[in-house]
């Protein structure tokens, strides 16, 4: 099962490598990982996407909690939640593709954020599936570069991860 784990951790040098080191040392897989400081500059928030059986996820959560730099965490996939990933794509935009790509961007509700004679740079936000679908749709032209941020997420409703 795919799980999205949100972690509040001390915003200190080395905190990230403790988490990354834990995953490599214990052989857990990381599908994606994003991290940045929160509104409280002493705290970072990390969103980690991993896969594993219930037993493995239970161990991952326990092992993460055991790290002294981890303040609090939440498995977003345990409840209703919203997940988003940001993608920037640079594509070749000449001839018919110039119009076709623009149409696709509208359909997917993305934006063209940079234009040259021969390229578009596109921005799209959404779930992993939506981004995957967009990349597939872009086969109408040549993709030069894809940059994905990894998933971030937040619980729906009252549920919040704060200290």
């Amino acid at each position, binding site marked *: 099962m795919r799980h999205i784990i949100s972690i509040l*951790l001390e915003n200190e*040098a*080395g905190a990230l490598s403790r988490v990354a080191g834990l995953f490599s040392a214990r052989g857990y897989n990381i599908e994606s990982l994003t991290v940045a400081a929160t509104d409280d500059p002493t705290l970072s928030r990390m969103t980690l996407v991993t896969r594993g059986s219930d037993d493995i996820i239970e*161990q991952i959560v*326990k*092992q993460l909690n055991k790290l*002294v*730099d981890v303040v609090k965490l939440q498995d977003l996939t345990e409840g209703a939640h919203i997940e988003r990933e940001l993608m920037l794509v640079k594509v070749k935009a000449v001839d018919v593709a110039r119009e076709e790509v623009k149409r696709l961007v509208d359909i997917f509700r993305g934006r063209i954020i940079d234009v040259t004679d021969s390229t578009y740079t596109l921005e799209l936000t959404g779930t992993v599936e939506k981004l995957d679908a967009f990349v597939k749709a872009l086969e109408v032209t040549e993709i030069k570069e894809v940059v994905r941020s990894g998933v971030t997420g937040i619980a729906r409703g009252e549920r919040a991860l704060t*200290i």
Partner: protein
Amino acid sequence: MELTGAEIVMRCLRDEGVEYIFGYPGGAALHIYDALYQQDAVKHILVRHEQGAAHAADGYARATGRPGVVLVTSGPGITNAVTGIATAYMDSIPMVVISGQVPTHLIGDDAFQEVDAVGITRPCVKHNFLVKDVADLATTMKKAFYVASSGRPGPVLVDIPKDVTAQKAEYIYPSSVSMRSYAPVAKGHPKQIKRAVDLLLAAERPIIYTGGGIVLSEAEDELRELVGYLGHPCTNTLMGLGSYPADNELFVGMLGMHGTYEANMAMHECDVMLAIGARFDDRITGDLAKFAPYARIIHVDVDPSSIGKNVKVEVPIVGDAKSVIRDLMKEIERRGQKPDPAKLEKWWKQINEWRSLDCFSYDRTAEVIKPQFVIEQLYKLTGGDAFVTSDVGQHQMWAAQFYRFNKIRRWINSGGLGTMGFGLPAAMGVQLAYPDATVACITGEASIIMCIQELSTCKQYDLPIKIINLNNRYMGMVRQWQEFFYDRRYSHSYMDALPDFVALAESFGHVGMAIEKPGDVQSALREGLERKDRLVFMDFITDQTENVYPMIAAGKGHHEMHLSPDADDTPQERELA
């Protein structure tokens, strides 16, 4: 008053009540060593290799319960200590390691004796710190001691760049610290305590299986009361030996790969298992698929991640062993019930049948010295009251089997990491903590060589350790596995070109003895033990081919033990794999 970082380090150690630190100086630690020189509250023990410092601090911690403290320099100083830190980590031993680091402005420059100490130690410490501002130093030291000794204990590293040890700051040592990201749970959940008691009182074939957690929590009195009240059999892991008195009838011995037949069979056949402060390690469980097939398991551990890691648990209780056992007892007393004596009697009858097999028996008529005999005699002559450290291998297992521990903190060995070379430096820490006690280091000729340089430290500080060297001219456990599983291809398990241990000990200024005949064992031990003021190196030339029995081979279950040819009337098949 403003103090330098180096002075702050020493003041923190003093205010933390640290008696001894174990270390070795070097460039990045020189300011600290200078501050050390100018005070006399904390005594420094100069080892001969940083691995020895970490093991000695570890031995001190295991014997006293107080955190062991290590001081090393940057680069090779800290890398040499890593084996000792990892050893402490695997056995959850409280330890604070202070390492010098190159000056802040050189970090990352590949400076002389620079190594990323925080990075290298990260997987084998409970936590670590790099102190970049002298103003944070005292609080960081307090945090280090707090994290190292609370919850599930473990080593904590404080890496201090040299310039930080020269800078000045106001010294205030906090009396306590709280950390929002670290709050170990002590008290077990009341609902789970009730569920556990339901199971314990209704059990027909119970077993209480306890580990190093009882020692760390010093819950031996509580455990004795609980086991005594319930009348259940109790088994200890290698790390837990001494937490239930070996002389007690309810004790069925150590369990696991080289545990007793009765303990392992009881584990296999039990219907209710109460595990306290033990972590279902692979050397305990054997093949997990065959482990305790009928058991409903209650698992008490202060570390939530230990619970459910290897084995499915019906009643998980996160909490400190002492507190949880007290709560279990309270709940049992509140109910005023006892287990059904008829059912227990039937279970004990079965256990005593297993016991009658006498699984530790060995050939007592041999003309060569049997290693088991040496330990048996040591046990008798010390009245079972010595501190015993060990290295790793056959001698370690025989020590665990034949020295019957009745108290906690008497048996000091590297269980988790299995570090050869641990025994002698660990014994130094124990002897410093208890200068008048008998401290025996049971070792083998392969292990002792690994930290032999510490004989020099023992001389410098007059540590009268008794080294019991079971010298079989083999890495015995490696040889045993090669005999059983590799068609006797003894690949590099032979210790060629050994030193003359008597001359070696004497060259370090100690007493050396060589013992070659079974008839001389007792008198030699007596003579050695009587030399209370001297380190005595007793080199026992033992049977080269003796094996440790019983044995659960890899991939086997508790009920598939391989027994000694001397234990049973029916000759056992020697092929195991």
